[in-house]
């Protein structure tokens, strides 16, 4: 990776030598100051197109026309998703923090694929047959792509399909999830909710965002002033960047759309050491996500859960551009003295597992008799699974669970359905496949359960074959089979002998015990 800093930043007050020294010592990072116009930074990068593929550009001002800048980068043989631009003039001491975040984000970039880019033709003016003769301007949108080897849609997972506000994700006849590229707007909602991180969005992968946030909050370990993370819609990023002055407490993290930021991310960022976290959507009619209510509900959920845990709810906020600009609102609440939070999430990627640890850490600071009540909320990133009577421990739920929150445990004569509340995202995949219809799932945040170890929801005895002594099935399953088949000879054989002995494929394995 190469970090290029515009030499003119010296005049803007940046201690360029210090910055070069700081980033030049990062492993795998080369830092250079260059004399050159900020208006055509791709000229600096093009000579390196064949070798280094990741860059951070520290400019006085960002290129004014981003799509045109990206087009120039592509023409120079560069991948715009691998180039992070930070405008640093008038950023004061924040400049190096912002640079550290950009370096971390680009360092976590894992490459992009041809399917991540969607050309869109911009037909202009009233259309006639004549206008069809000339190719109109093309702009490119970065859109997600599914990694088939990691996706578990074939096992029944439908989390991304439910998250997509444009019905762009649908399973095919083979059960595999397909992305309708024409419908996809690249909002990224599917990317941040996929429990298997099987959907790539170059430039904004959860791993990259997580790395940037971690670098931003760690950049000034001795600085006790409050610092907040501001997830900013890409369409507002330039305006927000201009409004955040050298003393601003908010540190912006750009995402393609605020709809990409789920409540789990907001909660986990608090655990990474941020004083506060906010989301800034674009509020435009052509918002990529188009569901401001979902973003609002997500923030409302976070505030409610914090309140129940005794933490200030204003540590999570929904902001507009005007809020960032106003001096009063730019003051981020002071960090609460809860050292357990920062260590709780460690290097976990952004997601429900990290958020669960933050909530457990927050709850741990309260008196034991003040344990918070469970919170049922449609935006809860966690779920609770319950089993009614009649579970046969067939394992269909465990097979369908995309996070392994449900598993089947066999130990000696016992068979159990085990539930790990800290892994459950409440997707309901288990309930949809249960043949006995005994599974219920609710979107509930129950911090007491999140803190507990995996627990058995159902236990049974494994019945043994009368011929070979091998396992047949759990007792309840055999009871169910008898109920379906009646008490005839077939039922008797099926429920007393294992599959191999019934099929006679264990020659010489004795006679009935």
């Amino acid at each position, binding site marked *: 990776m190469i970090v290029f800093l515009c030499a003119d930043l010296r005049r803007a007050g940046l201690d360029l030598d210090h910055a070069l020294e700081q980033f030049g010592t990062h492993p795998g990072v080369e830092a250079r100051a260059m004399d050159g116009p900020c208006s055509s930074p791709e000229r600096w990068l093009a000579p390196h197109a064949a070798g280094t593929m990741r860059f951070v550009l520290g400019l006085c001002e960002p290129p004014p026309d981003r799509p045109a800048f990206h087009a120039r980068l*592509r023409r120079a043989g560069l991948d715009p998703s691998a180039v992070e631009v930070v405008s640093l003039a008038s950023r004061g001491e924040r400049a190096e923090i912002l640079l550290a975040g950009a370096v971390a984000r680009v360092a976590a970039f894992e490459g992009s694929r041809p399917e991540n880019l969607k*050309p869109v033709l911009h037909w202009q003016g009233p259309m006639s047959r004549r206008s*069809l*003769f*000339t190719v109109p301007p*093309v702009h490119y949108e970065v859109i997600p792509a599914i990694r088939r080897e990691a996706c578990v849609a074939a096992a029944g997972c439908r989390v991304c399909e439910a998250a997509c506000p444009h019905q762009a994700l649908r399973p095919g006849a083979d059960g595999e999830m397909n992305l309708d590229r024409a419908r996809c707007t690249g909002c990224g909602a599917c990317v941040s909710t996929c429990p298997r991180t099987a959907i790539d969005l170059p430039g904004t992968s959860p791993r990259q965002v997580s790395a940037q946030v971690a670098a931003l909050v760690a950049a000034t370990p001795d600085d006790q002033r409050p610092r907040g993370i501001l997830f900013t819609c890409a369409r507002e990023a330039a305006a927000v960047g201009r409004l955040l002055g050298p003393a601003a407490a908010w540190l912006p993290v750009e995402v393609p759309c605020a709809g990409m930021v789920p409540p789990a991310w907001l909660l986990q960022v608090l655990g990474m050491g941020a004083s506060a976290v906010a989301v800034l959507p674009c509020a435009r009619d052509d918002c990529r996500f188009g569901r401001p209510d979902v973003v609002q509900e997500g923030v409302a959920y976070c505030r409610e859960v914090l309140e129940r845990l005794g933490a200030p709810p204003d540590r999570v906020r929904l902001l507009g551009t005007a809020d960032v600009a106003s001096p009063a609102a730019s003051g981020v609440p002071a960090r609460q003295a809860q050292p357990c939070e920062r260590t709780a999430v460690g290097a976990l990627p952004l997601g429900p597992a990290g958020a669960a640890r933050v909530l457990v850490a927050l709850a741990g600071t309260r008196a034991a008799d003040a344990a918070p009540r469970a919170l049922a909320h449609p935006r809860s990133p966690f779920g609770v699974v319950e089993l009614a009577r009649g579970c046969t421990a067939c394992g269909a739920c465990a097979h369908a669970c995309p996070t392994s929150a449900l598993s089947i445990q066999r130990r000696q004569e016992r068979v159990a359905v085990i539930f790990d509340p800290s892994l459950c995202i409440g997707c309901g995949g288990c309930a949809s496949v249960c043949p006995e219809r005994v599974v219920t799932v609710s979107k509930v945040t129950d911090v007491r359960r999140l803190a507990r170890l995996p627990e058995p929801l159902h236990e049974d005895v494994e019945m043994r074959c009368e011929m070979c002594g091998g396992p047949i099935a759990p007792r309840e399953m055999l009871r169910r089979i008898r109920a379906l088949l009646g008490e005839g000879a077939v039922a008797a054989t099926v429920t007393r002998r294992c599959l191999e002995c019934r099929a006679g494929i264990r020659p010489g394995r004795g006679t009935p015990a």
Partner: protein
Amino acid sequence: MEPGRGLSFGELARLRETVYRFLAAVLLHPGADWLATLPPVARALGQETKALTVFPFWGPWARLLVTLGELDGPGGKVVSDDYTRIFGSTSGDAACPARESAYVQPADVPELMTGLHAEYSGAGFSLAPDFAGSLDDVTTELEFMGLLCAGEGDAWRRRDSIAAKEPLEREAAFLEQHLGRWLPEWAGRVALHDPGGFFRLATAAAWAFVAHDGDLVREAAGGFERIAR
């Protein structure tokens, strides 16, 4: 210049035809003819397809042309051996078979072959009596796309946008239902089996071009709908 500006759909169709047909030729077995013909063509195409620099597949395409342009030396024998190792022969033991039927369920193969036959004949093409390849071979499918682009280009040159609509829609459907479906997996497999080799470049360029073309053609076909509205 913004991507696309100043280029006519007729010129674009001609360039796309060139790319499809050239890719189809590159993915044939590199025998003596291949080694004698393609490297000089690759050197010439670098200039001839310069108008494509505005599109993001230019990077993989240019890398392919440069590498192929330097292959008429001793590197040719290596490429020939690599081809057999990666794409195999007719014995069916290839690591990365270069035919669509290897990437669908066996039960779906008859339907695939019937569908391809219908696509080809529906577009007015029939296979030559001495055609020894397979309907679903990557070279056949790429060549078919080249032929569709040629038909589209003819229509644009006649300034007959209505006649251009049909091949455009055929191209969009064929890319979505065939090349766009199996090329990513195929290119992924080749990248694993030939990480530093020529065919990794060739398949990456083919997939980058097909992925882009699928969207571009669909968008272009959408222009007709806008007129209809």
